């Protein structure tokens, strides 16, 4: 016997299990980053002089990264829409671009981090850098998680398209929701850490 509503929507809620599940998971993620944002505000208001992000950080690189993530978000949603249109090739293309952009994000982040270390800026230098490394570090872990999952459905997991296309499309929608959330977190991290 199979668990119901993995592909079809339950009539009264209009949802399939995975979608509800991922939204609940994202709710907890909101609270996780919420805890860190709360810490940020708390620490910042607790001291007299809080450094401007731009003193330590590179705004151009972060702008580039913002663009990477925004674009990857749109390609992610396009890859799902392609599946909806039964166009598996386009799905492959868009998901591939998403992966590339995500990797691009990581590469830029790598250069950002190493250049901080070169200048002798470490998490322990001050609380601004501490919270910067913690928040972006956690975000990077989320990006890496996203890459792993997208890669899985791009290569080995894509076989499911042949056996169970409805379910595969749903999975991509779920992965997409997660990926947009990662983008959304960055949309807030960017001004909060770099610009204020």
């Amino acid at each position, binding site marked *: 016997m199979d668990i119901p509503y993995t592909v079809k929507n339950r009539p009264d809620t209009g*949802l399939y299990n995975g979608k509800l599940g991922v*939204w609940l998971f994202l709710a907890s993620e909101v609270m996780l980053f919420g805890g860190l944002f*709360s810490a940020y505000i708390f620490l910042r208001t607790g001291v007299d002089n809080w450094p401007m992000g731009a003193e330590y950080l590179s705004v151009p690189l972060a702008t580039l990264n913002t663009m990477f993530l925004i674009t990857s978000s749109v390609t992610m949603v396009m890859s799902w*829409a392609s599946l909806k249109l039964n166009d598996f090739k386009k799905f492959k293309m868009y998901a591939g671009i998403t992966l590339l952009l995500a990797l691009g994000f990581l590469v830029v982040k790598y250069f950002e981090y190493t250049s901080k270390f070169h200048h002798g800026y470490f998490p322990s230098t001050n609380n601004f850098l501490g919270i910067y490394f913690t928040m972006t570090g956690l975000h990077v872990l989320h990006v890496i998680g996203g890459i792993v999952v997208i890669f899985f459905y791009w290569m080995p997991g894509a076989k499911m398209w042949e056996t169970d296309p409805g379910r595969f499309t749903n999975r991509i929608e779920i992965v997409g929701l997660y990926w*947009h959330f990662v983008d959304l977190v960055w949309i807030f991290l960017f*001004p909060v850490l770099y610009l204020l």
Partner: protein
Amino acid sequence: MANMTPEEVKHHIKTYVMVFVALAFLTVVTVGISYLDLGVTGGIVLALIVASIKGSLVACYFMHLIDEKITIYWTLLATVAMFLVLLFLPLSTSLAQTQV
């Protein structure tokens, strides 16, 4: 989003592209604002407003929140409420802390 016609999907795709353009534009705007000298408070407020607009665009269109099911709205409503509590209540508590 389980049962959409191809036309609907195509229509959606147009929206995605538009949202993408808006997001890119707003990113430029935020960076631009940060070079203006608006003072700390002004800068923070404006930057956060822009970020919220961007965030809502992503949530509403990419994540399809604009027409989602009631269950998800309820869940998110509760989450947002707790999120706001988490963000501001500790702060107001510490600001009211008795100190010499």
